């Protein structure tokens, strides 16, 4: 039986009728056209699909759209400021070459943003441990870790809160 799901995505209210078995990532990609969120596995391991639900990073391939009823969801498309200014984490990934093919990148960035919400000054070990749920096959993680550490420094010196722009 189809169900109706209403939620906020990147600050905008949306209502969609979907099958009960629809995953959040399918709602985002197939119903809302937000294809920045990727699917890289089917066992909840790779983290390419990470988005924020009510400010927390989750794997959108392991959550039903129905479970997002009433929630506020932020995807990679909603991370930059409305004027296009990159979030400091996005800027840090670019500056430190934290991405190559770009496929794991949206999930990696969303996960890293959540880390700094919990821990504004992580050590390299803490960054690496936090990112265990995001698999990257290109970068060897070196520059991703560097980007996250650099972003933490930037955020500490700036006044801006690390939460995503749309949250």
């Amino acid at each position, binding site marked *: 039986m189809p169900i109706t799901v209403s939620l906020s995505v990147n600050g905008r209210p949306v209502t969609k009728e979907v*099958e009960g078995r629809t995953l959040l990532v399918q709602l985002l990609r197939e119903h809302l056209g937000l294809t920045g969120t990727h699917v890289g596995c089917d*066992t909840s391991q790779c983290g390419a699909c990470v988005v924020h639900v009510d400010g927390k990073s989750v794997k959108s391939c392991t959550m039903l759209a129905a479970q997002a009823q009433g929630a506020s969801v932020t995807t990679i498309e909603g991370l930059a400021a409305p004027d296009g200014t990159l979030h400091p984490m996005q800027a840090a990934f670019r500056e430190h070459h934290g991405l190559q093919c770009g496929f794991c990148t949206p999930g990696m960035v969303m996960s890293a943003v959540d880390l700094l919400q919990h821990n504004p000054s992580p050590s390299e070990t803490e960054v690496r441990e936090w990112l265990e749920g995001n*698999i990257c096959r290109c970068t060897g993680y070196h520059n991703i870790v560097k980007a996250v550490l650099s972003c933490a420094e930037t955020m500490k010196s700036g006044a801006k809160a690390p939460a995503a722009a749309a949250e």
Partner: protein
Amino acid sequence: MTAPLDTAPSGTGIGKAVRRREDQRFLTGRGTYTEDINRPGQLHAYILRSPHAHARINGIDTSAAREAPGVVAIFTGADMAADKVGSLPCGWQIHNKDGTPMAEPPHPPLVTDTVRHVGDQVAVVIAETKNQAKDAAELIQVDYEPLPAVVSTADADAPDQPQVHPNAPNNVCYDWHLGDKAAVDAAFARAAHVTTLDLVNNRLVPNAMEPRAYIGEYEPSTGDYTLYTTSQNPHVIRLLMGAFVLSIPEHKLRVVAPDVGGGFGSKIYHYAEEAIVTWASRKLGRPIKRVAERSESFLSDAHGRDHVTRAELALDKDGRFLGLRVATKANMGAYLSTFAPAIPTYLYGTLLAGQYATPAIYVEVKALFTHTVPVDAYRGAGRPEACYLLERIVDVAARETGIDRAELRRRNLIRPEQMPYATPVALTYDSGNFPRILERALELADYKGFAARKAESARRGKLRGLGLCSYIEACGIAPSNVAGALGARAGLYESAEVRFHPTGSVTVFTGTHSHGQSHETTFAQIVAEKLGVPIENVDIVHGDTAKVPMGMGTYGSRSLPVGGSAIVKAVDKVVAKARKIAAHMMEAAEADIEFKDGRFSVAGTDKSVGIADVALTAYVPHNYPLEELEPGLDEKAFYDPKNFTFPNGTQISEVEIDPETGVVEIASFIAVDDFGRIVNPMVVEGQVHGGVVQGIGQALYENCVYDPESGQLVTGSFMDYCMPRADDVPSFTVQTDETSPCTHNPLGVKGCGEAGAIGGSACIMNAVVDALSEHGIRHIDMPATPNRVWQAIQAARVPVAAE
């Protein structure tokens, strides 16, 4: 030497750490991967795959599935055969020792009567939605008659084994050799010491993060087909699928490879699904989309490596290498993937000299069919296997002869004054200073201080080991005529087109494909510098056969050495023509025209004109030598390499092993690489990091395992196939050495995409075995998982009974 990134000089030219132009779209979720594309009216395909490793199909009943909601069509191998769809072709023919060609069994996109591996394609269900297609597939009744299967590389050619193909007796695809057997036998006869080592190069699953995806589309009014595909080389797919499988001429087949989420070799090949969706799109008159789930990727993406080898090294009393003898069995899987036969031969046997002046080498390779997923190139492709073998046996020889491992290498390295150096296995190295790189690496890693670090680790109850690996690879495979003589069925050149637009911006079309390699940035750096235009005015186009004239794609670290050289050639043609136009504009002799930093000037005068103005003149040819020169400023070039390039380097790692649990931790990893000239040090370092982690993955984590009885893939998901994570690996120290540029291409570049993966696994395993050597352990196979390391320590602790 590259400067550290944060102090990289500003600017956008060659050698600068220019930040990537592709990042803006990837970082904001605006990339366009194949799965992101939706075509009007598209249907969704689901491939029904074999649950058996080997079975005869006595019938397929699709009647119930056809009635399921949303189902539009179901096709089987019989339908494709009725349309005379061809076999998926193999792009390289190897010959046996006796000169006969290899066994080349058919590889139908959908099987007709027999499945030969778990995951083999049995039928395709096409429905309005993905879920409907998958739901309906469960209703297909396939009458399988299970047959015994063989998955083991070591045993596949034993006489009593199940046979994969009727025309490949004892499952032998080919039995190949290279080198002078008599010379090697003579070398062993006079050896002071012979080191023998049996080793396994474990099977890997490439696992690019983006699963393979396809959309086939047919336009009945024109007869034009379009295939959107996650491919590293769209032109190759156009050729292979068009000419050999579906009989579609090139002008009626457009292949688009948009943003592709990593490849590492696994997206080079022409896959069954490409033919299926393209063929079916015409049958049904609607676009057909197919996206693999990761569990399907494990069962259908070409795997990598999978060798079983005995190697013997003969040394004289001073530790000089006299001869190397290698016998390898290489697993091809159930069918020949596009380039599979070339990997354990011309990309493996030819690399067995490594960096060493071993005078005599003989290698035999038996390629075997098994009931497993086809095996083909995976990052490094043959060269990591050669490097692993060599660097392991050199370490074992060092231990056996009591010669320090760095010193043993030092004594045997090819010296720079020997360049160009012809190896006994068919390659001629053009450049490289191996001793210099080794010494730099030893210094960077503080080799002399290792004993103290080992003692410190021991105080904490840890076993510390150091791994040394000096690798060489052959990249930018070519020249075409040589490759052709060795069995290649394609050319190995690259094409480029450099198009000045009337108002001075430039579009560059390249036949290589970027799926993480940063071509949009690095190629633009080259063109901007050579033409003297701002990098913002240069765009790189790739991945579309309708836009790019021709291409061989990206693999084998070829993009810069071959594709970049083609771009330089096209740029040179543009400049040559622009020079004529400039001469006309400034009423000077062409010979007097100088070109520098984007301006043509007349020697000895202050007259000059910018190249953008020349471009405008070329397109608005009012004041123009129309009798001698065509209008326009748009030049194409094909570049066929004169030789392989030979990136090389030394990597040194240190590991600490917890003897109580067997856990290996990487304490440090350094690499000093010679990639020739560097275009973008930031990108190069990134390529090395990624390659090294794939090497580490093979050494410590990744292993593709089949059940020997059932032929089922045991490691069929990320739950069991261990991908390296951020917390499994350290940060790295990477340096480059630009003192030995490539001598035969215009950029002096050698390629950097595979280096990390070529040396990485050997480097780590040498460190692991070094750490375990105090328990008397001489070798363990990859991956060195905690379980395996612990068991090796346990076995070593058991006192050996006197014989």
